[in-house]
């Protein structure tokens, strides 16, 4: 009894201490960054190969434990410590926010319609929230590579990778700091998948993912109507890559697409300032953001131009319209920016003088465009929440759950002037002279050993436009509230021109979809612009099962075709830049099964 008292008392003390803490926005694991290393000629999966039976036992054990032990979510995560609430108050499933969570976030991490005016010095406790969010991942990736490879690599291959690893942790801090002042910061500790000497490595590093201050209710405009934030933050994109339900292997792909040498990711955090708000009367709402950012996703900014971003979305709350519709939202975004090679994180001389050329990570000399190249993204999006009638009810047999469904979609098109890469004195591994003399790229930009084009184009920087369109459409289904969720999403990207074909652009893959640009380009484009791999797509299907607290079991199956250009999974099998540089026609179809256990405290 005495021990029981002590334990109870301890719980009360802990709860009391943490009462004022807050959690409001879980985030997913950061995606592994692109490796700067070329792919290993021979993969060495044996060192990471795990007895699959162990994985099976572990997984089955977790599932059984959820059946044996009480399954109710009893966590007191951070948000609950301030507001005494469960995760589902704000989250569909962590980290995706529900409508209430979005209102909470829009109001500077305060309950909608409220202004917390308690000065920080009077709280007698540190008003900081923290959550450790670690994941162990077991995944199988199988890839079928159909390529014309450099020497040393087989023309075709089947690669299989299995891993069982710790994918990292995250800490979040946030809350209010007094009247109209709130803050948010998150630190990620991640293991990067990397290829070193033909083996996988996993260097770990910690970094700020986001860190910003937010002043709310400018000009007493009303709760959450006009806020300004400053620091490192994710733009108000329609669907946050940091709060999506799918895993790191399945980001919103269209947000990550950029030109061959671009570095911009739409949904990666930016440094800058933004004016945003939510104007609403409960039924109709207008969400907006106007941002000025440095355009380098948090890296050192070396150009003098600021990027601008605008986002507007309107939504309406329905009272079961047609018996099922709950909420609908449509929105649009526009991003305009500039970049140059010095913006690239790999650039070893970010603060140096303008370089005439720069050696990229493969030792290839690349000219630096002395002018900034511009790019833009623009898109529209929608999101619909509805609830199907319990059509599975048959007489007295009723399933004890509803089926709330969120269907969402994004269409985005983008254009990069792209950074100049003409006059590439790069080796053509595996290519013969008939391959088009580097696709004719030497004819441009002052190469001395070529024909009369040289004079015409000497010292003339030729930008290489890169256009794409794409998007995704997906659905999240609440199968059992606060327990089981089903997710599915289809991503596609259609690239109209790409820096890929080593030969001369006349070697399209079979079954590719021809684009009009292909016919028009031909040999005119340096180094051969191609229509090959101009489309790719990915399909993800999975579920999330909240087991006993604090475990969540996540399973995903993914399939993607025409991997070219996909940043993920980058270093394991294939590096898109490398392939571009080598100029091979590559088709990598990949699929994976992934089990993930998420811990949230």
């Amino acid at each position: 009894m005495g021990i029981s008292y002590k334990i109870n008392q301890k719980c009360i003390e802990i709860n009391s201490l943490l009462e004022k803490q807050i959690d409001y926005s879980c985030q997913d694991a950061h995606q592994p960054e692109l490796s700067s290393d070329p792919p290993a000629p021979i993969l060495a999966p044996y060192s990471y190969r795990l007895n699959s039976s162990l994985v099976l036992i572990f997984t089955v054990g977790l599932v059984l434990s959820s059946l044996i032990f009480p399954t109710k979510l009893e966590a007191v995560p951070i948000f609950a410590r301030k507001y005494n609430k469960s995760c589902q108050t704000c989250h569909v499933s962590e980290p995706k926010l529900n409508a209430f969570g979005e209102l909470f976030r829009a109001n500077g991490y305060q309950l909608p319609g409220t202004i917390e005016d308690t000065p920080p010095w009077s709280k007698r406790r540190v008003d900081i929230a923290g959550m450790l969010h670690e994941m162990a991942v077991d995944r199988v990736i199988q890839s079928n590579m159909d390529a014309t490879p450099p020497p040393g690599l087989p023309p075709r291959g089947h690669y299989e990778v299995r891993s069982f690893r710790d994918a990292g942790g995250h800490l979040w801090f946030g809350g209010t700091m007094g009247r109209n002042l709130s803050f948010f910061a998150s630190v990620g500790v991640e293991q990067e998948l990397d290829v070193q000497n033909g083996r996988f490595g996993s260097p770990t590093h910690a970094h700020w993912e986001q860190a910003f201050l937010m002043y709310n209710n400018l000009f007493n405009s009303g709760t959450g109507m006009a806020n300004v934030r400053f620091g490192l933050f994710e733009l108000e994109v329609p669907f946050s890559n940091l709060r999506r339900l799918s895993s790191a292997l399945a980001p919103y792909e269209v947000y990550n697409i950029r030109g061959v040498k671009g570095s911009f990711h739409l949904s990666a955090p930016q440094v800058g300032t933004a004016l945003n708000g939510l104007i609403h009367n409960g039924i109709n709402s207008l969400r907006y953001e106007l941002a000025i950012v440095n355009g380098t996703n948090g890296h050192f900014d070396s150009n003098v131009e600021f990027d601008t971003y605008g986002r507007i979305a309107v939504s309406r709350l329905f009272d079961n319209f047609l018996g099922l519709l709950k909420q609908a939202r449509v929105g649009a975004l526009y991003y305009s920016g500039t970049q140059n090679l010095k913006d690239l994180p790999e650039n070893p001389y970010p603060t140096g003088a303008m370089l005439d050329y720069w050696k990229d990570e493969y030792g290839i000399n690349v000219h630096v465009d002395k002018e900034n190249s511009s790019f833009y993204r623009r898109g529209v999006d929608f999101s619909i929440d509805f609830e199907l009638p319990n059509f599975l009810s048959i007489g007295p047999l009723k399933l004890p759950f509803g089926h709330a469904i969120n269907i969402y979609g994004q269409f985005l098109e983008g254009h990069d002037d792209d950074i100049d890469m003409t006059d590439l004195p790069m080796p053509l591994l595996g290519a013969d002279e008939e391959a088009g003399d580097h696709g004719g790229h030497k004819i441009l930009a002052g190469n001395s050993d070529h024909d009369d084009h040289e004079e015409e184009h000497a010292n003339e920087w030729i930008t290489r436009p890169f256009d794409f369109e794409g998007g995704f459409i997906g659905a999240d289904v609440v199968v059992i509230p606060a327990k089981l969720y089903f997710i599915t999403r289809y991503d596609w990207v259609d690239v109209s021109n790409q820096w890929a074909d080593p030969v001369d652009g006349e070697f399209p893959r079979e079954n590719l979809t021809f684009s009009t640009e292909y016919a028009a380009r031909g040999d005119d484009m340096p180094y051969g612009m191609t229509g090959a791999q101009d489309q790719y797509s990915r399909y993800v299907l999975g579920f999330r099962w909240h087991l006993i607290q604090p475990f969540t079991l996540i399973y995903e199956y993914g399939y993607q075709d025409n991997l070219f250009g996909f940043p993920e999974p980058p270093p394991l099998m294939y590096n898109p830049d490398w392939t571009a540089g080598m100029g091979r026609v590559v088709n990598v179809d990949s699929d994976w099964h992934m089990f993930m256990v998420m811990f949230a405290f």
Partner: protein
Amino acid sequence: MFEKRFILFIFVSTFLFSQEKSDLLELGKKVYTESCAVCHGLSGKGDGVVASNLEVKPRNFTDGKFKVRSTKSGQVPLDEDLYRILSRGMGHDNAMPTWSHLSVDKKHAVVAYLKTFAPKKFARQARVKVVPVPPRKESTRESIAAGKQWFLDIECTKCHGLSGRADGPSTKTLKDSWGNKIVPPDLSKPWLYIGGSKAEDIYRTLATGLTGSAMPAIEGTLTEDQTWDLVNFLMHEYIDPGNNAPR
């Protein structure tokens, strides 16, 4: 002349009062739609966009059943009860947060607006009977022991379990009046008590029950004295043993 002035006074007063009430309801509707409708639904039926993903469903205001009250079982709550729930929230398992940062005016306005969802029920609000909470009985060894015996005798253990950790034989089969599965709180976790975890709150919850749930009102089953014994046992055993040690 006097009669004319009196009639005019009545007319103006009525107009002003109705205007004031209208303004209050307008404000209440505004706050409700901005802050409450995502869970409780625009028409107050507890079917907002978030509701279907919540384990404990938001209250359907249209049927006039409220769990946490100071009134007798089955009766509508007082305005003070609604105001208290708004200010304090309803425990961790329940998605109803504490709205303590809403201004007093807004909370009063929301309370007034909530009542419009079940006008017939709340028309009888003036006639409800409040269950009194008498001064707390001293927490003695005898009182705690008696409370423990009441805990067993009136079969609290069926739902809350012998250990009080929501592991009783009936725990997994409980449903509320709306057919939703409910789980009684683990008594050792005071943050789960939807009616509050102070001694007076627990007394009120025991005495009035939680309408619509499986928690019955024990008023009439136990006397005030016996109810306090039970409260003393719960406080001593589960909630705050350090401050409720037997004297």
